[in-house]
């Protein structure tokens, strides 16, 4: 039947995926530490129906060939790890990473998750946990009689206790970086998992080995640019419309053919 029907279908499908990605970005515009995604398009393979330069006679060559492209494909969703803006929250348990790196989180199955979301809380045992209750690795416990908590730029957690003016160190936050952080597998709940593409985590103290520093009392906003997403949305819609027009036109041609 008509090739163009299927080609335009790939175009509509790809634009639909693009819209899914855009909607996901827009819905996470206020998610702490969210990194925006973008769909990467690639043209599908080409059918070489007549090879350009083939001999037509002993002396003559075909001046033009016949290549039919088969449409478009979404090959990847690429995550953009640029820094989100830092927002002061004033909460002493809120921390933001200024620079590269991820906090480590102990997942219920024993493996390690990675997050940029630093809106930490304390659980009933005084452990430092994420807002979903997952403990921060390597484990920081704040004593119940702590009066104030301070987290240094290098991740040192110290408290003051009532009646004792000296700071007591209660733990050290660890951070990890990846060679290819775009290859991390998103696990939802602001968490990422290590994957074969991301490489092994390089654990270090904040501020060293290319890792960013920790800012207490700040949260990292998502790096979604609303204007950009809306412009992308308009473009996606128009491209979708044009591809649907191509399907319509191909259909009309088929109708003419069947009226013969």
């Amino acid at each position: 039947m008509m090739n163009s029907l299927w080609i335009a279908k790939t175009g509509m499908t790809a634009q639909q995926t693009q819209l899914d990605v855009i909607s996901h970005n827009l819905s996470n515009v206020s998610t702490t530490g969210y990194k925006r995604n973008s769909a990467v398009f690639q043209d599908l393979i080409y059918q070489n129906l007549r090879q350009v330069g083939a001999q037509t006679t002993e002396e003559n060559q075909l001046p033009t060939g016949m290549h039919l492209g088969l449409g478009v494909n979404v090959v990847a969703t690429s995550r953009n790890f640029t820094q989100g803006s830092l927002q002061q929250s004033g909460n002493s348990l809120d921390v933001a990473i200024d620079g590269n790196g991820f906090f480590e989180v102990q997942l219920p199955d024993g493996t390690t998750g990675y997050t940029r979301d630093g809106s930490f809380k304390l659980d009933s045992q005084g452990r430092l946990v994420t807002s979903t209750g997952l403990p921060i690795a390597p484990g920081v416990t704040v004593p119940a009689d702590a009066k104030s908590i301070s987290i240094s730029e290098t991740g040192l957690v110290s408290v003051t206790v009532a009646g004792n003016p000296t700071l007591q160190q209660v733990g050290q936050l660890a951070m990890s970086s990846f060679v290819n952080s775009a290859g991390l597998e998103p696990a939802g709940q602001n968490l990422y998992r290590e994957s074969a593409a991301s490489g092994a985590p390089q654990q270090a103290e904040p501020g060293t080995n290319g890792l960013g520093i920790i800012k207490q009392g700040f949260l990292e906003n998502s790096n979604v640019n609303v204007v950009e997403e809306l412009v992308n949305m308009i473009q996606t819609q128009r491209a979708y419309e044009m591809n649907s027009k191509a399907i319509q036109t191909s259909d009309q041609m088929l109708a003419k053919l069947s009226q013969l």
Partner: protein
Amino acid sequence: MDRIIYTSMTGASAAAQRQAVLANNLANASTTGFRAEMSNFRSVPLQGSGATTRVFALEATSGHVDTPGPAQTTGRPLDAMANGNAWFAVQGLDGTESYTRAGSFQVTNAGQLVTSTGLAVLSDGGAPLDIPQGAEVVLGADGTVSARVAGQPPQAVGRLKLATPGAEDPLQRGDDGLFRTASGEPMAADPNARLNAGVLEGSNVNAVECMVGMIAASRQFEQQMRLLSTAESDDKSAGQLLSLNG
């Protein structure tokens, strides 16, 4: 039977193929660095004894449109758009040096600079580029790749191979969507080529032109259909004239 039906059939099938080329261009209206496919009709006269009255139409693709696509700022440090008519050199799956305008690069877990489909990006020496662990990659305007590990001065890793095709050895699209030289020889690196980092090149498909082309192809197809039905009614009349029952 009148042979006009065969002639107009070639016209109709060529119009349908043009529709496929236009649909492919439209489907790739958002593909990074895509080059629109050009199509044209070719006339093929049927040579034989007697007068050459019948000329068939064939659809051909005569290459790609070479104008740069629109620049889209992404701010991502590994996105790059080559200025003018320069191309990025990558290693195709068949091992040959291929060229692309899609400058959405990534770093693999092994620290190699690759395209979004995982093909190695080549340096001006023709070798893949290795990025040190934990480094932030910065692309310079002349294709210089430098890696910066925080707290240390940036170190040069190499230079992307940017090549500009000449008229004597133009680029042709391969079946995998990558471009290669017509002669098969790799191009020399162009020392004057420049790129813009943090920018991606959009597709150079002209949507208006495509839509108009689609309408034209569709009308042309209709005309061929009309010719076919005219041929049929001609045939019928001739049959009536010649029938014994009159």
